[in-house]
Structure formats: structure tokens, C-alpha cells
């Protein structure tokens, strides 16, 4: 069997529709089961642990009914043996979609990616990719997302696509608990029992909206994004009622631009956005004034480096006008530079190494990532990340810390 776990229902929906291609089929497109562990060799603060270990799994199921109607269900599970707060059951996708000609409508939980740069793969430095909330408990580097409920309608032109999103339910960020590492609060603030506040009276159910227009030519993909809703990263404020910390989510109007373009052996990328904030600080202390944020860079590909392998060098600049003030970002004036090596071998071996460095203060994050297939069904993903930051840096809480991340998955 080519699809060992395939369940082909093959239920004829309507016997009356003789001659028409009406069928129903549900099958497993992809799935994996794996182990992942984060290990921190150094000691953290007294309450902090040395890491965690979890079993992870995901299934991608798809159903199709006739020509235009289909559904996707992508349940994800993580069960952590050491840090139960990392455990998660989530519908990364649970949607129905209907397409007719150039139109497509989707309803349900979805996961999208609007990022185009490399830096966002190392740290939670995303600029425009804000429609899905991040699961920072799952991955402190911000690579894990949560499914987001949305209704989408899109239209595909000859060289462009327009998408409109209605976002009826905002999900709060999933933070690690105080014993977790790579935690900016160093065990001093526990966000797992933090109250959640919203600057809108409608709370999590305030309707958000987004519009995205992407243009594609042979040499460039350019997208414009307008997002209106809560910023996915909350402010951490004191809750004077409970005496604990509170997560405060505030509204933004984001106007963003992403570009991916090729120019000979060069690849040019940017994701840049302006965030208009609405609330004035007299009502909600700490909400930043409107700000700019950008990650932009280039990648150069060497041809036939080391006999048929692909070698690319990339450099990106990170800028954020909030600076490193309170409630700013650690990535306000940084450079990320690195190398990507793709072996083009039977095991799809890839190595990515990079260093992010602050320009106006000493703050260094280095990451090395190695990925390859083992045999037919297994894949190993190894990452090493280490921090070195001065006392006045927003990353000082991570100074001298390092992590070994290992993920082994069996795909079926």
C-alpha cells in the first residue's frame, strides 16, 4: 500500500448524480510522530529547569466532495513529560473550502505564513506574519504557531491574488511557565496564571480583519497587507486587582509590504510594516506610539560550490522604531548574517548557520541548524543556539545561555 494509513472512504454521495463526478473521499495526506527535547546545559535561575522532553504528533487529513468543496483537518498534539505547560492539543487547521473558477472561500481554523525573511526562523522577530498567534511555550524562538479562526475569500487574477480575512476570535499568546528557559522573565513572572486584558471592550471576540494583495512576476513576488486587530504580542502589565501580571492586548492597524525578488545570483527580501496604534497611553499605560518595523536583506547563491551542492550567504538588517525601550523589542537595530548549505544528497541534508548581532549594544545570538533524513521515514532536526549579551541589552536575561534542540520525527 502506498498510503499505509490512508482511509479512503469512497462513499458515493448521491447515486442520483449519475454521470457527474460526485464523490467523497477522506484521506491522510501527511502525518508524523516524534520526540523533541530542549536541553539547556547551563543553570538558569533557581526555579528554572534544564529543559523539557515531549512527544509530538500531527495528522493532515483532507476530504473532498466533488469538484469544488473540500475540507482540511490538521490536529496537532504535544505532550511534555517534564513541563506539562508545554502540552498542547490544537487544531492547526480545521476548515472547509469551496472554490469556483477564480474565487475561493474558506471557513475555519487556518495556518498561514506571510514571512519571507530568514531572521524570523531564528527568533520571534516576525514583522508581517501576525495572523496566527505564536506558541512561545512550544518554541521560545517563535517557530510554533496556533491555528486561527477566520473566514477568507480570495480572487486570483492573472498575475495577482486578492485575499480578504475576517478574524472573529483572537487567541492569546501561549507563554512558557516560570520554570521554562529562554524566558525573558527568568522565573520572576509567571504568565501562566496571568489575567488577560484587551483594549477593546469586546475582548477576544472583537472582529479583526485583513486584506492581502500579492503580485507575481517572473522575477518578483510583492505583497501588500493591511491588518486591523490585536497585536499578537501583548504588553505585560501589573494587574492591580489580582496583584499578578496581566497580558494586555492592544489594537493596531498594520500596513505591511513583503518582497521576494531574484536578480541573477542575488535574492532580495524584505518584510516591512507600519503599525498604527490607537489607544492613547492615558487609558492604557505602556501602549507604544505608532511604529515602524522591518527585516530586509539579501542572499547570494554560489553556483556549483563543492561539487553540486548549493551554498548561499545571506545578510539581513532588523529595524524597529520602538527601540529597546520598555515594551520595545530586542531586535530594533540588529544584523543577521549566515550561511545556508544544501547538500543535494539522498538524505536532503541542510545546514543553516547564522549570527544575529545588535548594532548599538553587545547582544549576540548564534544559531546552527542541521537537518537530514534518516532512512526513508525518519527526519532529524538539530539546533544549537547560544546567547551572549551585555547587561544593558534586552537579551541580557539570556546571557551565557545556550540550548540544544533535537527533534526526531517519523513521517507516514
Amino acid at each position, binding site marked *: 500500500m502506498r498510503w499505509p494509513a490512508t482511509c479512503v472512504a469512497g462513499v458515493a454521495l448521491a447515486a442520483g448524480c449519475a454521470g457527474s463526478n460526485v464523490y467523497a473521499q477522506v484521506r491522510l495526506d501527511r502525518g508524523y510522530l516524534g520526540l523533541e527535547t530542549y536541553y539547556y546545559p547551563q543553570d538558569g535561575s533557581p526555579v528554572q529547569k534544564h529543559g523539557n522532553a515531549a512527544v509530538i504528533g500531527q495528522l493532515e487529513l483532507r476530504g473532498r466532495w466533488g469538484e469544488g468543496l473540500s475540507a482540511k483537518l490538521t490536529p496537532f498534539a504535544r505532550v511534555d513529560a517534564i513541563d506539562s505547560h508545554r502540552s498542547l492539543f490544537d487544531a492547526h487547521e480545521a476548515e472547509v473550502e469551496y472554490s469556483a473558477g477564480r474565487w475561493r472561500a474558506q471557513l475555519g481554523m487556518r495556518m498561514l505564513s506571510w514571512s519571507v525573511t530568514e531572521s524570523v526562523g531564528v527568533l520571534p522577530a516576525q514583522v508581517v506574519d501576525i495572523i496566527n498567534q505564536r506558541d512561545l511555550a512550544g518554541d521560545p524562538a517563535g517557530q510554533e504557531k496556533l491555528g486561527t479562526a477566520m473566514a477568507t475569500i480570495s480572487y486570483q487574477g492573472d498575475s495577482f*491574488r486578492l485575499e480578504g480575512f475576517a478574524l472573529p476570535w483572537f487567541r492569546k499568546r501561549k507563554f512558557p511557565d516560570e520554570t521554562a528557559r529562554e524566558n525573558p522573565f527568568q522565573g520572576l513572572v509567571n504568565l501562566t496564571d496571568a489575567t488577560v486584558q484587551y483594549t477593546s471592550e469586546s475582548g477576544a471576540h472583537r472582529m479583526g480583519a485583513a486584506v492581502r494583495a500579492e503580485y507575481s512576476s517572473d522575477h518578483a513576488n510583492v505583497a501588500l497587507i493591511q491588518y486591523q486587530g490585536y497585536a499578537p504580542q501583548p504588553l505585560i502589565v501589573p494587574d492591580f486587582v489580582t496583584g499578578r501580571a496581566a497580558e494586555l492586548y492592544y489594537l493596531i492597524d498594520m500596513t505591511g509590504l513583503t518582497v521576494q525578488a*531574484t536578480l541573477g545570483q542575488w535574492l532580495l527580501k524584505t518584510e516591512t510594516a507600519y503599525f498604527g496604534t490607537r489607544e492613547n497611553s492615558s487609558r492604557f499605560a505602556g501602549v507604544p506610539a505608532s511604529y515602524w518595523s522591518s527585516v530586509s536583506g539579501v542572499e547570494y547563491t554560489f553556483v556549483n560550490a563543492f561539487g553540486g551542492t548549493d551554498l548561499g550567504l545571506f545578510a539581513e538588517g532588523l529595524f524597529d522604531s520602538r527601540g529597546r525601550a520598555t515594551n520595545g523589542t530586542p531586535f530594533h537595530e540588529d544584523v543577521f548574517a549566515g550561511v545556508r548549505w544544501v547538500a543535494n544528497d539522498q538524505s536532503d541534508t541542510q545546514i543553516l548557520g547564522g549570527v544575529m548581532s545588535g548594532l548599538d549594544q553587545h547582544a549576540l545570538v548564534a544559531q546552527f541548524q542541521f537537518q537530514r533524513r534518516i532512512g526513508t521515514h525518519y527526519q532529524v532536526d538539530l539546533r544549537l543556539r547560544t546567547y551572549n549579551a551585555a547587561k544593558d541589552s534586552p537579551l541580557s536575561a539570556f546571557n551565557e545561555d545556550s540550548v540544544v534542540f533535537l527533534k526526531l520525527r517519523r513521517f507516514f
Partner: protein
Amino acid sequence: MKGKFLSVCLAVGLAGSALGATGAEEPAWVKAYMAPLEAAHGSAEEKQGLKIYETQYLMDKGWGSLEVGLQMRLIDAAGRESERRVVERKTEEPEQPNKTLGIFLEPADVRGTVMLTFEKSTESDDQWLFLPAFKRTKKINAVNKSGSFLGTEFSWEDISTSELTKYHYRFLREEGATWVVERVPVYQFSGYSREVTWVDKSNYQTVKVEYYDRKGDLLKTLNLDEWAQYLGHYWRPLRMEMSNHVNGKKTIIQLSPYRMNAGLDKKMFSSLVLEDIPLPNPIGTTPVAAAK
């Protein structure tokens, strides 16, 4: 209009007559496409080599869109095997190079990865990769056409050979039922200094290729077998075997029967909607009798 011209040049081409004789029937795009090529091929051997490939090229126009399943067996020097499965979809664009969608099915960790390519002759192809794990479509730099395709002994350059303008041709000799024609890649980052090809006189199809590396040494040999004809016109090999003489590795591609004039939706050949392509069912690669 194009169809009529094609059937004419098919007949002419297959009869081995000079294509120039049909000048009155040649649409403008063929003239415009061929003119620089013909100008660049000066000597009698070059003209003869170009003529053979020109006939092959024009014979292969008119299939609209196609779908085929590829099963790739990778065999290393010690005889260990691994397997890849890909569904390939192509669409013919009027007066432009073809667009290709490759949808990876096996190994399981890359299943659902989609590669979209707009072929270019003298510059790098335009290429995008949809990564299902990240739901992200990346524009990738396809400068390196000579690297391995999916870890096989085929490079991207070996697979995407449909454009006539990618090479400079020279007729070498006749060898039994074949013509031997040398092709020199035009692309500056090609992995090869030259390719020696054997073209079947009966149907103008390339049945064997020897690839010579940049230093001029024999690197690989490709044999194309199990020929089938579709829609009465289009010849395709169902088995391709590439042997690498340097590393001792071998890749055998077994193809499913082709679905030609497949009526594929052309708007799906766009970087904007790679995420919307449903995973196809694996297409069987059991060879069947050629279409009549």
C-alpha cells in the same frame, strides 16, 4: 491555426524533408524563435544538427497540458536503493517556455512540497518552492541548474530540456538507425561542457545522451527506453536510466503513462496558489501498452 501548421511540419519533419520548404506555413512566432538560432548555426554540420532538433521541437508542440507520475529509484555504488515519487504537471505556453509543477509524494517528509518552474534558456529559471510544513512559498534562486534533483543523478538541467534555445547544435555522424548530434549548453552556469546525443532517425527522439563535465571528461550517460506514442504524435520514454561514471551511482526513472491534452487548469501554474494544490493520488508507474 497552430495545429494545422504543426501537422504540416510533423509530416514534413517525419519525412525528413527540409523544414524551410514549408516557409509559407510558418507562423510568425516560429520565424522569430528560429531566426537567431539559425543565424548562430553557420556551418553545414551545425545547420544539420539544428535541423534535427528543430524537427523534434516542433513535433512536440500541441499537447496543451500533461500529467505524469515519476518513480525514481536511486541506487548507490554499493547497490543500496531509495525511492522518490513525484507527480509532474506541465503546461505549454504559447510562444513561451513551458511551466512545470512538481509535486513531491515520497519520501514522506517532503510530501506535499511543490516546485514551480518557468524555464529559461540563457538565464536562470524562475522557480518557487512551497513548503507544506511552514505553509510558505519561497522564491528560490535557481541559478544552479546543475545540482542534483532530489538527490538523484539527474540535475534540474537534465530534466528541463524542452527549449531548443538552450543549446548550440552540431551534427557529428550517422550511427546505424541514429544521428549523433552534439549539444553545447548556452547557459553560463551549466554543469556541462557538451552533450553527445543519439537521435532515432525514425521518430526524431533522443534515445541516449552522454554528458561531459566542465573539464571535458565523461560524467554521466542517460539511456531513454520503453518509448510510447501519445495522441498519435508525441513520443515519450517511460524509462530513463542515468549512470554517473564518476561516483558509480545510478538513477532509474520509471514513468507512468502520460495524460496529454489533460486540460489542466493553467491558473494553478502560479506562485500565488501553490498552497491550494491538493495532494494528488500517486500515479501508477506500471507500463501499459502505448496509446494508439
